[in-house]
C-alpha cells in the first residue's frame, strides 16, 4: 500500500513516484513539492525514483500562509 496525501493506492512492483501520483489521481505542477517518506524529491526525478511498499508520498504547494 502506498499513501499519497490522504489516499491509499495499491503497490505494484517497480512503481515510480510518478506512477503512484498518477494512480492516486493527483497531479503536479511547477509549484508542487513532493516528499517521499519525508525526503524532498525534485520534480525531474519523479519518474526515475522507484518506490518501496508502504511508502508515504506527500504533495504540497510551494507556498504557505501566515
Amino acid at each position, binding site marked *: 500500500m502506498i499513501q499519497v*496525501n490522504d489516499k491509499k493506492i495499491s503497490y505494484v512492483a517497480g512503481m515510480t513516484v510518478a506512477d503512484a501520483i498518477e494512480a492516486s489521481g493527483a*497531479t503536479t505542477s511547477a*509549484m508542487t*513539492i513532493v516528499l517521499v517518506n519525508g*525526503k*524532498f524529491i*525534485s520534480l525531474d526525478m519523479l519518474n526515475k525514483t522507484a518506490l518501496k511498499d508502504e511508502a508515504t508520498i506527500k504533495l504540497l504547494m510551494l507556498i*504557505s*500562509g501566515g
Partner: protein
Amino acid sequence: MWSKVIVDMKNQTVKREALEVELQDLGGRALIAQYLIKNVPPDCDPLGSENQLIFCTTIFAGSNLTTANRMSVGGKSPLTGGIKESNVGGYAGALLAEHGVKLIVVKGLPETKGLWQLHFDREGNVSLEDAEGYEGLNNYELVNRIHKSLDNRLATISIGAAGERLYKCASIQVSEFASNHPSRAAARGGLGALMGSKRLKSIIIEKPLNKFTFNYNDKERFNEISKKLNRMVAEGAKNDPFHNIGTIATIEATGANGVLPVDNFSGKLFPKYAEVGSGTFLTNLSNRGGRNKLACQPGCAVQCSNEYRDKSGEYLTSGLEYETIALFGPNCHISDLDAIAMMDRMCDDLGIDTIEAANTMAVCMESGVLNWGDSDGVIKLLKEMTDGTEFGYLLGGGCEAVGKSLGCKRIPTVKHQAIAGYDPRNTKGTGVTYATSPMGADHTAGLTMGRAFEDTGRTAQAYASNKLQVAMCFADCMMCIFAFSHMVPELPLLAELMAAMYGGSSEYARVTGLGVKTLLTERAFNKAAGLTKEDDRLPDFFYNEPSPATGSRFDINDHELDVIFDF
C-alpha cells in the same frame, strides 16, 4: 471605471473620484508600488504626515475568478523603513469591488485629537465618522460592537490597541467572510502602526444596495477563461492538503528536513513536531466541533481556512496557519497546539503580526527572559503587550528592538523585520529570497523549498529565488497565491484575462513584466529610502553556524545576492 477614495486626515475630508487611467488595469502589489513611488517621498518618516496608507483590490477584483477578491495594504513600513505591501484575505476586497472602489488612499495626520472610522454605507456613500468611543478596543470587541450598530452585511478592516500605540509589529485585521471574525491579517511590516498614526481605527464596508458593474472589454472571453481556471483550481484543491487539512500540513514537509525553525533558528530538529502537526489539528477540530475547509473570501475554491476551538468546545481562533504554529511552536520549543492557538487569538485581537511576535518570544527565550518551551510565559508576555506595560511596549517594537535591548547575539531579522518559518540554511533559495526581497523576509515573497533544497549549486538557488519572486509578485496583484499555485500550467491565460477585462495585450509578457517592473520599482523606492546592499543580507549566524540537523550553512555570497535582480 474603478474609483479611488482619498481620505485626508489633516482636515478629515473624504473625496471619491475616478482612478487614474494608468492605474485602472493594475492591482495589489503592482498598484501599491506604482502609487507609492509617485506619491510618497521614500525618505519620509513612516509615521509622519508625508507617508500614505493604501488599501487596494486586485486586478481581477469583482470578477468571477476564484480568490480574486484579496486585498493589499501598502505604505512605507514603520518596521523596515522600506516599501511594504501586505496582502490579506477576508471579505473587504469583495465589498470594495461591489462599491466600485479599487484604491483607498489615507494621507496626512489629524491636527486635532480624535479617532475616526471610514464608513462605506449601503447607499454607496463614504464618510469619516467619529470613533472615539472605540478607543483602546481590541479587534474582537470592536468588530462585535460595529456589527451591533449596523444591521447589514459588512466587512471590517481594523486595528487593535497595538496599532493605536504605534507598535511596530502592529497588523491590520480584516474580517472573514461568513464568520466576521477579525482573524485575517495584513500582518507584516507594521502597517497597523501606520493606520494608528493616522488615527483611523477602522474601515467599515457595508454591502451596497446597488452593486457596481465593471465594463469588460470582452466579458464572454473573460468568463470562458475564468471558468477554465476556476475548474483547474477546484480540481487541484481536491488533492491539496491546504484544502483537506490547512496550511498546518506544511509542518509535515519542513519538520523532518531542518527547514522548520527550532529554538530561535538553531538549525536543530524538533522531534515532537508532529504534536503541532496535521494529526493533532484534525483530531482537535473533530473532537471539539471546530472546522476546516472554510473560505475566507466568497467564491474561494481552495478553502484553506479553519475555526479552532478550545478544550471546552468554545471558539478560540480562526485562520490558524503554518507560520504561526511553526514560530510560536517549535521555534519557541513549544509543542502545545492549544497554547499556540491561544497566542494566535491574542495576536489577532491586539492586532499584531504573529511572525514578528513569535520571533520576539524566541529571542526572549534565547536571552533568558523566558525558558525554552514556556508557553505560559509567552502568554504572559503577550498579555503585557495587551496591557501596554513598559516591557509590553518594548516587545511591540519587534524582534530586532527586543533582541538588541536584551543583548541577544542571534537576532533573526532582515531589513529589521523578523523572518518567516523556514530555516534559510536548509532551503537556501528561500534564504536568497529572504535576503533580497524588497519586502524583507516574508513568507509569501518566493519560497523555494523543495526546488533548490539539495545543495545543487549557488546559481541554482539564486535562479529559483528570482523566478519565484517574480511569480509571487505578479500573483499578489491578482489573487490568493494558494489558488494561483493550481493555475501554474496555464499561466499565459492570465494575460488573456487581463486583455479580456481591460483590453490591451494578451501576451504573457504583460504578466511577467508586471512582476519584474514591480520588483524593480520597489527596489528603487528602497534605495531612495536609504536601504543599501547591506540590507540584502541574512544575519551572520546563518553564515557562521552550521545547522546541526544537516551541517548546512547559508553560503550564497554577496555578489550573488547583489546581482539577483539584474534582469
